[in-house]
């Protein structure tokens, strides 16, 4: 069977800012129709710069990219027409209604009048905005604004969706609705690139993931491949009643990283007999009152921590 051509082909994209020297360098990957592709990386990794280039907002200094066959540098308008875009901080015309904003964007992408009305009515209904469609966009909450931006990105049935932190700020129900819609679109052949640091979301949705570090594509693979590369690692999550000074835990043999997440103390460590007992003893010895304890297998979150941890160590 012939493989369908890539919806997004990125070849050796480089864009570095003169002022800071940061940006993205030599990034190459492709996103195929029907594929959900995750782009992850810590702050300053070049993720935003790469997205700016791919959205055609800025031109690369070298390299090229094609969206649905259209050259993203030389055929910007064709490329834009094939792409649905949601920026990380969506803005709208506050004095126009949510519906008017979405209608304006749909028509700007060339959707015919009647079709725009039908498609938008479905999307407003799907994302639970139907009852607020006539309200001015400036009265929308942050999450509602994000949902409106998702509607604007999807309404013209693009070949490629470029979503920057799409679920950040969405309530739980809306997140589920959004994830269901992403799966539906992927099934129908839409290629989707999600830039996000919501590890759970990326792990749940993405077929492949690319990690950016210091402007370079550091790793690319399926979530399963990444997670299996961490065989032998474990994560101990201890919920504490009180905060503790946990520095001494880093000295326990096998412990790779210790961090707090709210009331949880998260210990990334190698798998070795007796390690959990040593960690618990260390926490109790530091005066910690453990109310819950879990030992978890590695997830994409651990991959992220490992990769970004290595990046931080390299910087040191």
């Amino acid at each position, binding site marked *: 069977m012939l493989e369908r051509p890539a919806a997004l082909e990125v070849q050796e994209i480089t864009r570095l800012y003169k002022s800071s020297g940061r940006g993205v360098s030599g990034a190459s990957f492709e996103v195929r129709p029907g594929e959900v592709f995750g782009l992850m990386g810590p702050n300053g990794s070049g993720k935003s710069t790469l997205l700016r280039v791919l959205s055609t907002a*800025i031109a690369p200094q070298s390299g090229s990219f094609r969206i649905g066959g259209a050259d993203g540098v030389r055929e910007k308008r064709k490329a834009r027409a094939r792409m649905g875009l949601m920026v990380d901080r969506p803005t709208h015309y506050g004095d126009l209604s949510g519906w008017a904003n979405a209608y304006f964007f749909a028509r700007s992408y060339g959707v015919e009048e009647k079709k725009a009305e039908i498609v938008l009515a479905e999307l407003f209904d799907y994302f639970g905005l139907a009852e607020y469609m006539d309200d001015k966009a400036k009265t929308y909450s942050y999450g509602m604004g994000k949902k409106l931006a998702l509607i604007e990105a999807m309404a013209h049935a693009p070949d490629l969706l470029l979503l920057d932190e799409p679920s950040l700020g969405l309530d739980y129900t809306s997140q589920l609705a959004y994830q269901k819609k992403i799966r539906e679109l992927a099934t129908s052949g839409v290629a989707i690139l999600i830039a996000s640091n919501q590890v759970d979301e990326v792990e749940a949705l993405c077929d492949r993931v690319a990690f950016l570090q210091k402007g370079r594509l550091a790793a690319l693979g399926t979530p399963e491949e990444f997670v299996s590369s961490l065989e032998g690692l474990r994560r101990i999550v201890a919920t504490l009643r009180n905060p503790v000074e946990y520095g001494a835990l880093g000295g326990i043999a096998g412990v790779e990283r210790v961090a707090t997440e709210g009331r949880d103390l998260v210990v990334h460590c190698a798998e070795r007999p007796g390690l959990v007992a040593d960690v618990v003893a260390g926490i109790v010895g530091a005066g910690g009152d453990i109310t819950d304890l879990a030992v978890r297998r590695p997830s994409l979150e651990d991959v992220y921590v490992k990769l970004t941890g290595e990046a931080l160590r390299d910087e040191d």
Partner: protein
Amino acid sequence: MKINPPDTYWKKDVALFFGKRFALLIKMLYPMALIVPVAASDIPAQYAAAVIGIVAVMAGTFGAGESLTVDLNDGILMRVALTPLSPRRIVFEILAVNAILDFIQILPALLIVYVLNPAPLVWVLAATVAIFATLLTANCIGIFIANFTSSPADVLLYATAILAPLIYVSGFFRNQNPIGTLATLRDFVPFAYMNDSLKEVFGLSTGAVPLEMFVYPGLIAALCALGVCLTAPRLLSPRF
């Protein structure tokens, strides 16, 4: 023709203009508040013409420049620029709709001027055309300034720096009978044609030819419009 929901950039601007009722009331009233007392007074013709001219120039320049920089800061204009719409078309629509809306704002006051100061029809038409050309040119200046700053406050500063010499050359207050280089320069500023035609409306003979009022300011404004439309890729590029 349906304006709201809008399906083009200009309809979006029209919908926003008429959507804010209180702001609309203020926008319609302030030109009247400035122009009507002047038109009804015995002020010398050249100063009455100058007041209307200043209102038109300021409304045009600050209107487009400030609203553009606000949209640029907000990020919404950048988002629109990432649709398949042609950047030059977007800038042309911004320019055209702002000039027309400014004209709508000033028109009631202008009609009162014409009623209070009956003048030959040809000069009334000439003044109207020249005022529109002035608004178009002033909006071009506002858009041009937005290429270099994303601060509405800077727009005021830069606009003053650009408009002050143009107003001087046009002979609103000083330089009313220019000679030599100043006279030549004056021919290239649309504000000057508006000033001459308004003086005629207020009964002061300037020796100007009505046909010039219909042709030259329009031509100059069209060239300015072409110029700012060519700046579209820069104007609609991200600011870092």
